[in-house]
């Protein structure tokens, strides 16, 4: 039912964040469990067949030891995770919708050497979202030439691509 890896993102105001993610990115709320005080206990959003969990800030020495789950808004805008979202098509229109909803576009849509077109946006609490769509098929040799990077472990060649 769910994918094997589900990223979670934490917000000071998760309900406001969910409304924003719906408006800006087109995500849909698929699960929302609140406690008696109205706080989000567990929330899940889906988009393009993928799933992301949404939560409020919290810490629990018993469950998390020294870890504490924070919004970037509480850490001076710094984050330990980005979330990647793969679109089938419509990347530029997606970016314009996000911008109109108040997303800070930190990288405008642009074609990358590895054959994807990508853009990067910050949500109101500072989480970073990377959107991509495939626009070209590029071989490893082409990618290395174009980027100067070393593919220490290259992707499996096109048999499965």
């Amino acid at each position, binding site marked *: 039912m769910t*994918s*094997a*890896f*589900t*990223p*979670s*993102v*934490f917000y000071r105001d998760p309900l406001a964040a969910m409304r924003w993610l719906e408006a800006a990115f087109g995500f849909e709320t698929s699960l929302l*469990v609140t*406690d008696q*005080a109205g*706080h989000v*206990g567990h929330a899940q959003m889906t*988009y*393009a*067949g*993928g*799933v*992301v*969990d949404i*939560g*409020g800030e919290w810490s*629990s020495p*018993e*469950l*998390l*030891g*020294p*870890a*504490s*789950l*924070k*919004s*970037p808004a509480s*850490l001076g*805008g*710094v*984050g*330990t*995770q*980005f*979330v*990647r*979202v*793969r679109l089938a098509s419509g990347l530029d229109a997606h970016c314009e919708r996000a911008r109109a909803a108040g997303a800070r576009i930190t990288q405008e849509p642009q074609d990358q050497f*590895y054959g994807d077109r990508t853009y990067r946006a910050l949500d109101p609490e*500072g*989480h*970073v979202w*990377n959107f991509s769509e*495939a626009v070209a098929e590029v071989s490893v040799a082409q990618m290395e030439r174009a980027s100067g*990077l*070393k*593919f*220490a*472990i290259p*992707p*499996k060649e096109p048999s*499965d*691509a």
Partner: protein
Amino acid sequence: MPDAPPISPLLFYRDPKAALDFLERAFGFETRLVVETEAGGVMHSESAFEGHVVMVVGPPSHSAASPLDLGGRVTGHVHVQLREGIDALCERARAAGARIGREPEDQPYGDRVFTCLDPEGQSWSFGQKVEAVPPAEQARRSGAARGSAP
């Protein structure tokens, strides 16, 4: 990468190669793509498990950080859903140096779950379905089990 999952996490590490190695040893993930920078960092990678991927990148700069840089605070968490073998995986992770938070335990919604931190403090949970629990029963059980809200 047409088989890339629609939504996937990208985690920052001070030492991404050590992190990729840990994810293999501790969790049984497979490193299937590593793109290095000239300075020896990792700008793109894929650590795969049952067809799904997490991307490991570092060392971080600008607005990105390892939990080590933030006193253990994280802005993300990754949940991994298993088909089987959750207790054995927890022991494998512990032996590899994962710090186990919640030991494997059955949850009101019918999954068995454990949580852990990796060596740089990125936060993980693993779950496995052990019982089909209808939504109404989940609500009843979790209501009965509810303590203070997080």
